[in-house]
């Protein structure tokens, strides 16, 4: 037996047609004989009408003239992902088209190796000299004399080579007194 409190809880669902058949029949039967629930159901219908009317009015008042321009602008902003997608698709196509051409890759690798060997004379990593080699005095004594191609100074400048070590010294006097050590 449907009571008013239970019916009131179900009226909103009944109004929206969301009750299953037995329950719907039970609520309908109760509403038919209950003035309070009939009024509540009528009020629900009225509320829905008002909501629909309000929304319709607002939609009519809305200006959709720039709507598609806005959509287009948002689509433009998403161009990078579009480019990424294009790049991925391009990569996929390239992979399928190029993978079978092993001789091309092999030839390219060989050509690159030859060009690199020709251009740079870098030895293999095992033979490579350390990044910085501490010059020893013995080595310096043999060949460390610098070759000066040009030299200018706003002060007094002296240039000499140490006869024993062959080290080249450029001595600049910034106070113009010409003093040497």
């Amino acid at each position, binding site marked *: 037996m449907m009571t008013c409190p239970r019916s009131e809880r179900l009226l909103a669902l009944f109004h929206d047609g969301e009750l299953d058949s037995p329950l719907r029949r039970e609520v309908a039967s109760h509403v038919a004989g209950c003035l309070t629930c009939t009024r509540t159901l009528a009020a629900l219908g009225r509320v829905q009408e008002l909501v629909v009317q309000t929304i319709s009015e607002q939609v009519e008042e809305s200006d959709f003239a720039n709507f598609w321009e806005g959509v287009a602008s948002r689509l433009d902003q998403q161009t990078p992902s579009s480019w990424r997608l294009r790049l991925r698709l391009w990569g996929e196509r390239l992979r399928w088209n190029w*993978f079978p051409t092993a001789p091309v890759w092999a030839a390219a690798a060989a050509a690159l*190796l030859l*060009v690199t060997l020709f*251009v740079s004379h870098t030895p293999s990593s095992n033979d490579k000299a350390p990044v910085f080699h501490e*010059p020893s005095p013995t080595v310096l004594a043999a060949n460390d004399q610098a070759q000066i*191609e040009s030299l200018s100074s706003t002060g007094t400048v002296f240039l000499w080579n140490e006869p*024993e070590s062959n080290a080249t010294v450029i001595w600049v006097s910034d106070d113009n007194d010409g003093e040497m*050590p």
Partner: protein
Amino acid sequence: MTVSRLALFCFASALLWALQAIAGEMVELRVETVLATDSSKEFDSRLNDIQPQLRKFRYSSYRLVQEERRRVAWGKQADFFLPGGRFLQVVPKGYLNERIALQVMLIEGTTPTPLMNTLLRIRNHGMVFVGGPTHQEGTLIIRIGATADE
């Protein structure tokens, strides 16, 4: 692994190797600044390898006040700031007959004209001394060294 993938792997390896070879074409510049004075008998042990050369200057004390190493590409300028508001501009110009061509400019403060400007060639792993600028109670002696990947 298919033949295609193997070939692609070889190509990628060759490319990496080539890039490494290109990246290796750098010059290491080393600038050491020594303060030479007559105020004491101190000799900085970090300068032991160039003691014979430094002793020729006939100061009684030698102290390493600054040391800087930098790897630069050919033709690129490297600025080394020295004590007393001076700085050294070094440009490795090229490498020929196991010699490294260096453009060296010693600049003092904001003076537009360099105190010294020279184009010289030193042997690979070699060095040249630039001395003379006064600092505090002594004189600065700058060792400029360069090492190129052969």
